[in-house]
């Protein structure tokens, strides 16, 4: 068997596994989200179909597939059909370069635990994740519905704005690793002795917030703000086309969490022996930690307003990401070998400053409004 054939077969097997696992994760995540959020809200969540309601997403999927596909009058048919596909394909494809383990040796050959070992992996992920916005925008535009249109418009503006901080934080990580290869980024974290969450703590926070916004999840779920825009961009979608948007959203969540794990949490490395199956468990655990964090945020916070979201993106996120990038670059150049240490210190200091500023802003917000003190029983004035 030639090397090329072997690579082809290996890639095919890996692609099939990743595809199946990712798609199977969607119902699990839906179940998990419903359960987790329910527990946070004093509810029980699904518990009728199957043990612990585990089969509930399956029942929902069957229902969605069996549902009539309603196509509203006046839609742009081609785009309307294409939009859900556009939103799910990049989500799935982006996972191709995410490494989930140390390269292993099979029959004397190296097999990378990622579908494709690309040396510009991170650029590839960024490119694909910006494609996802097309699905949402086109869905909103083609639906011939004003709410959908508003949802699509919001989504395009929001995702483009938050793409920038994501890119800038990624660049800071790339500076540390000196490579665009995700595998190198993981190895470098092990080499420097501390995961990137230390020297890039601010970057990590920015990445989590910005990726939350890019995922269109609460409190940044502008595009489908159900209390304002009915259902936003997918108002006019039914049946399986609607399900595809849903799947796209959850797959994106997994991809983003995986990316965050690889970039900041040392990928598959954990404590204990360094064997491939334990590594896989560590990797999955970290991904789920992120996902549950996103769910937690959704259960606790109100939705931010569209203009405030944009203001936050351009006035806070982007300058902060730029500063982080500049600081990282300067420290790397100046401190050379001891860059990691210095960066960690700088980040912790910056974080303290950040908390103080946040507190100040919040107390100013509160001060602007006097409390509604109960008045004594007197006539006004």
């Amino acid at each position, binding site marked *: 068997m030639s090397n090329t054939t072997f690579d082809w077969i290996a890639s095919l097997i890996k692609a099939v596994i990743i595809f199946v696992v990712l798609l199977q994760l969607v119902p699990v995540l839906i179940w998990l989200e419903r359960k987790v959020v329910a527990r946070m809200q004093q509810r029980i969540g699904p518990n009728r179909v199957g043990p612990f309601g585990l089969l509930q997403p399956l029942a929902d999927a069957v229902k969605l597939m069996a549902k009539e596909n309603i196509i509203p009058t006046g839609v742009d048919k081609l785009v309307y059909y294409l939009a859900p596909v556009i939103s799910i394909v990049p989500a799935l494809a982006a996972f191709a370069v995410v490494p989930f383990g140390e390269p292993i040796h099979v029959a004397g050959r190296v097999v990378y635990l990622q579908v494709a070992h690309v040396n510009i992996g991170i650029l590839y992920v960024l490119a694909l994740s910006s494609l996802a916005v097309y699905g949402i925008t086109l869905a909103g535009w083609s639906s011939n519905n004003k709410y959908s249109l508003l949802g699509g418009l919001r989504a395009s503006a929001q995702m483009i704005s938050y793409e920038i901080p994501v890119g800038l934080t990624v660049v800071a990580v790339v500076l540390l690793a000196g490579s665009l290869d995700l595998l190198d980024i993981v190895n470098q974290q092990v080499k420097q002795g501390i995961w990137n969450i230390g020297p890039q703590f601010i970057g990590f926070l920015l990445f989590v917030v910005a990726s939350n916004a890019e995922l269109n999840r609460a409190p940044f779920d502008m595009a489908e703000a159900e209390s304002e825009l009915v259902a936003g961009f997918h108002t006019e979608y039914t049946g399986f086309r609607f399900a595809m948007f849903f799947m796209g959203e959850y797959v994106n969540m997994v991809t983003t969490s995986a990316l965050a794990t690889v970039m900041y949490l040392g990928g598959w490395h954990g404590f204990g022996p360094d064997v491939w199956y334990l590594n896989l468990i560590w990797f999955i655990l970290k991904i789920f930690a992120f996902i549950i964090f996103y769910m937690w945020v959704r259960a606790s916070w109100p*939705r931010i307003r569209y203009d405030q979201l944009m203001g936050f993106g351009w006035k806070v996120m982007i300058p902060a990401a730029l500063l982080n990038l500049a600081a990282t670059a300067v420290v790397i150049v100046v401190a050379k070998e001891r860059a990691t240490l210095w960066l960690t210190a700088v980040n912790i200091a910056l974080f303290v400053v950040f908390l103080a500023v946040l507190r100040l*802003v919040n107390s100013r917000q509160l001060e602007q409004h006097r409390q509604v003190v109960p008045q004594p029983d007197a006539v006004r004035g």
Partner: protein
Amino acid sequence: MQKEETRKIFEDARLKFGEDVAFSDRPAEEGSIVVQPSRIKEFSRWLRDDLKFDFYSEVGGADFMFQNPRYSLTYTLFSTKERKHIHYKVLLDEDEPRVDTISDVYAGANWHEREIFDMFGITFDGHPDLRRLLMPDYWRGHPLRKDYDIGGESVQFSANFADVTPQTLPAPPDEEVFLGWDRLETQPSSYTQLLDSGAELEDAGEGRMIINMGPQHPSTHGVLRLLVELDGENVITTLPDIGYLHTGIEKTAESLNFNQALTLTDRMDYLSPLGNNLAFSLSTERLLGITIPRRAQVLRVILAELTRIQSHLVWLATHGLDLGAMSAFFYCFRERDQILDLFETASGVRMMTSYICPGGLREDIPPEFMPMLQSFMDIFQSRVDEYEVLLTKNPIWLERTQGVGKISVEDALSYGVSGPSLRASGIDWDMRKVEPYSGYEEYDFDVPVGSHGDVYDRYLCRVEEMRQSHRIIAQAIKKLEPGPVGADERRVLSPHKIEIGNSMESLIHHFLLTTIGFTAPPGEGHVPTETGRGLLSFYMIGDGSPKPYRMRARTPSFSNLQALPLMMQGGLVADAVATIGSIDIVLGEIDR
């Protein structure tokens, strides 16, 4: 006492208006001033400017068929400075009833006059937008007129929109004066104007867009429809369209006896049924001239305050949900369920209780009620803290609510906005303090007052009100003593069950009360009350029969909603949602 004040004002008015004003003994305890239709605007302006009656409450109509003049309009105003109210009336002849509008004096009169135009066919000269309000535009006849046919008529609306355009409807019968008809064809209503201009704007590429929020929309809190003109996401104008939940409660009440009509009030503001029961019962009791035993008074206060808490909890839950804070929703409903359990224990029904009735309460509370109430009281304060932890200092919540949906005190008063929505603008105005009923003067509680009149202040006011209601209930529990819960009035309340078993006369009396009902003397009764949403009052007119001759409900949401376009102006779509949530409307009582 109130009557003396009215008389004093009347004497002043005599000097200014001469023979054009007269004093009337209806309602018996308050009195009213009858004004000539031609001078109504002048009179209203005089009351507003010279006598400082700044808070507009309502205009209500009544049809006294076979009397001349046939129609009577009753205007009610409050003075926030002197803390009193006044009724004045206009009597209108049968043919071509018309009167000047006062909507330029009090902005809130706009919708009330439209409602009267809709229901009685009285024209208001100079009204800016005289269209039907609750009935569809193409409706024939005026439902609250006493000669309006009931039963047998075909339904006037169709599920098919093409059928209801004016072109396809048959011409109106000649004998009927249908004032709205020619208006519809000759004068484009502002609604169609708005739609037309919207189409033009869209054609001209101005970037303006009309979106139709509701009647099926997640955040309109029922079947409210808003036509919102948008420039990008900025709200330019808003036009509320109501009437989708119009069930003719005021008309239906006229063919039911008092105890049956009481059950309709539950269904008006379905989030504060006992508050509505209380307002209805108080007005009916004033009409009947009966007093209520102390135990019933105290229990009424407990139930009314529980209802207020319950209503505020639903408000907080849904308001939070509108702004995307979904967890608060479930926390609030957890406590609300406890209150509904209490109602169920007391009355057997969770929501439509009809438990407070004219004459007292239906039954005494069962023994298990008090321990349940106590266990609720024990936890509730800490639960309110819990909601506040989620929202009050949350930066996103602050961003979303501060400075949004503002309304000034003057505007709010002129529109008749009441309840927490008014108090958030910065005026201490609570009917429980201003004109105490059911013994509220004995309780020690504070009225939370805001200062900015925005969504955040309304939020703070309501949350504080829940705490104050808790305080009132705690005091009421201490005041509760054994005793009867019904007035000693055999003409209103049935004899006790044991007595019915032993005495034939009692059985007959019970039978008559159940089948026919008690009769109310001719006259009028009116008691303003404070529900969770604001000023609720029933204007009851009796004619000596067992049925209310007219039951006019002045509902707080109606006036609060009317001020919505003002609050929404200049905001974003997301602010619109926040503002609608913050005025806490219930469409059931708006459309009635």
